[in-house]
């Protein structure tokens, strides 16, 4: 027994040492590989993942009001919301408004609360101006005398809804929903509903653009794939040519072409095809034209790459087995191009979802896509919570489509060449 153990140990010792050495060398190899990826990873983390995450977080985290008006938000945390809040909340709001006025932060709280209910801004500031008055009666009577809105449940519900630290206010608003005084989710009034409509329109425009690109791009890719290499090179160069011009310039060029006294209208008029200028700009038609023009190469390139790899012998085999040319094309050729079709459609569709400049420049008011509203809230009204919530909607729509595509076609089947 002892002998056997000794023997086995005698063999095992070098084996363990070898494995350890092997592992060490592998580990250093892995470390070296990781070190090569590390700069890019850190770069993406620092300039992409963290800032975007922080930006999107603005739709969910809402701590500003709680910081500026701490006493009243604490007092309202225990409030059941069915009747008016207790006297303590009234006393607390007086203290908070006074302190916030002195610190100069009242305006920030007022801005946030005014998102929910128009008029909250003046309620806070008017109340603040009257706090110097002699307080007659209880805090409840005092505030009620300054503004009767302090005797409405909804006023307090607005503060509680904004008390954070987590809020669904922006996300609900991005879906045209809101919470009422009873904390139940209801639809926004019909005349203020906009975002569901916009999301639907964004998907629709992207879909139409993708289909148009496919219909226009498939024959082009097929044609180029069947040319001799030199000519194919020239043709591909022509396909890529638009990339050499900036997106903005290409879009503005469409404005020049399509406008009322533009080149196209002048041609149509001079040939007598129309009697008065046709309206071709600032509408959906112009958006489709300009977006298809910009995105077409993203359809042609993957299609071409896949078609190039399809051996002509398949089609010859099909005909020799008696298939008519159309049948052979439909049942043998087209199925083989599907990975390219999938890749092209996905690339065009996802890019189209985020389009902003093109619809903004050539579209009308009812052709704006979701990115327009993200920019509107981010830069015009500086309501970052709303901008972030809409960005989350856009991201969710993109990911959902990606998942659907993966389910139907399989992302592993996608080929770019």
């Amino acid at each position, binding site marked *: 027994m002892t002998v056997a153990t000794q023997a086995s140990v005698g063999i095992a010792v070098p084996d363990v040492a070898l494995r350890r050495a092997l592992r060490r060398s592998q580990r250093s190899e892995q470390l070296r590989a990781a070190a090569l990826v590390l700069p890019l990873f850190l770069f993406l983390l620092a300039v992409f993942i963290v800032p975007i995450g922080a930006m999107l977080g603005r739709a969910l985290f809402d701590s500003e009001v709680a910081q500026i008006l701490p006493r009243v938000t604490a007092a309202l945390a225990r409030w059941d919301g069915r009747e008016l809040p207790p006297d303590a909340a009234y006393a607390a709001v007086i203290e908070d408004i006074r302190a916030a006025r002195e610190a100069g932060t009242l305006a920030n709280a007022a801005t946030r609360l005014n998102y929910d209910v128009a008029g909250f*801004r003046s309620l806070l*500031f008017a109340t603040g101006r009257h706090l110097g008055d002699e307080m007659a009666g209880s805090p409840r009577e005092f505030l009620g005398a300054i503004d009767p809105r302090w005797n409405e449940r909804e006023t307090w519900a607005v503060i509680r809804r904004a008390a954070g630290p987590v809020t669904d206010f922006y996300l609900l608003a991005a879906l045209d929903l809101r919470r009422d005084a009873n904390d139940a989710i209801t639809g926004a009034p019909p*005349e203020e509903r906009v975002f569901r409509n916009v999301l639907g329109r964004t998907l629709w425009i992207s879909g139409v653009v993708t289909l148009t690109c496919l219909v226009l791009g498939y024959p082009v890719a097929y044609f180029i794939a069947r040319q001799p290499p030199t000519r194919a090179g020239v043709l591909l160069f022509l396909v890529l040519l638009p990339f050499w011009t900036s997106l903005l310039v290409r879009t503005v060029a469409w404005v020049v072409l399509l406008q009322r006294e533009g080149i196209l209208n002048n041609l149509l008029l001079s040939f007598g095809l129309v009697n008065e200028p046709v309206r071709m700009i600032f509408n959906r038609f112009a958006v489709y034209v300009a977006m298809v023009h910009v995105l077409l190469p993203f359809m042609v390139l993957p299609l071409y790459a896949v078609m190039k790899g399809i051996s002509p012998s398949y089609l010859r085999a099909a005909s020799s087995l008696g298939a008519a040319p159309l049948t052979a094309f439909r049942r043998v050729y087209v199925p083989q191009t599907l990975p390219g079709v999938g890749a092209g459609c996905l690339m065009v569709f996802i890019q189209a979802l985020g389009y902003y400049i093109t619809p903004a420049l050539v579209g009308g008011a009812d052709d704006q896509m979701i990115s327009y509203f993200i920019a509107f809230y981010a830069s015009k009204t500086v309501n970052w919570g709303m901008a972030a919530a809409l960005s989350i909607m856009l991201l969710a729509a993109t990911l959902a489509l990606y998942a659907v595509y993966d389910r139907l076609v399989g992302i592993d089947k996608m080929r770019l060449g």
Partner: protein
Amino acid sequence: MKQRLAMKVGVLAALAVAFSASAAARDLTVVSWGGAYQDAQREAYFKPFMATGAKMAEENWDGGVGTLRTKVKGGNNNWDVVQVESEELLLGCEEGLYEKLDWGKLGGKDKYLPDAVNDCGVGAIVYSFILAYDGDKIKADAPKSWADFWNVQKWPGKRALRKGPKTTLEIALMADGVAPKDVYKTLGTDAGVERAFKKLDQIKANMVWWEKGAQPPQLLASGEVVMTDAYNGRIAAANDKDKKNFKIVWTNNLYTVDSWVIMKGTPNKADAEKFLVFVNDPKNQKNLPPRIPYGVTRKDATALIDKSVLPNLATAPENIKTALYINDKFWLENLDKLNQRFNAWVAK
């Protein structure tokens, strides 16, 4: 080696000197909107001010009360006098970003247009949203009011307005016969908002929306629209520089005021006040409008302004008679809600 060390020391010393210089006294810094406007201000105000022996530096900015908030609250503010829009004036004054002005030094509140007077700011220029059309395309029988803007039978074609509820809703109500003095009273009620959108429904199919001030003259020039609202200065500039024949209808124009403010806690407060006294002297104010067609805010400056320029100004007695002052207090309160409503309406 020694040489490099010496150089390093030298650079460090230079930096230290530069830094301490900037931390200590700096010249009065005046911030305005840049571009053609600041060029005009330089000739009319800045150069003559410096000719009196005063020292000043100029900068420009793009607006936004957040910028000023960061400067004051961040504790390293390097601006002294800033030109702000009316909304920034209100917000910043509420937040305590500006010094309160000593109106006695500025000649007294009654010397100024009433809308140019604020605890924190003194009006610098007055400009208007006006109705504009191309005089080469509409010759006889031209539109005269916002009601005519709605008349698509008589003047067929597209119209343009600024995208957004601010100014658009006021224009709709005035086109519907509401007097300027009643516009915000009406707009403050749900029925009034309803009325404005109903009026806009009538021409919705004929509308094009602009967002940047440069667009209205382009839309008129390309024939895309027959009428538009626009900043009066842009239309005058197009006539002046591009030899256009655009016409302005001043009836019921909507005007607003940009103001000078002094940043809170500035070490150059005395110089800043001197600057404001200088630019609010009617003898100096009269030199701005000939360079750019914006009205000035001293009542007694109007009489001194070159007569040929006067009809182009929002402050000309003829032009201001039927005008509506854009009420920023109203918009501060209602913009979020009406933006939402407008976006929903315009997207349908």
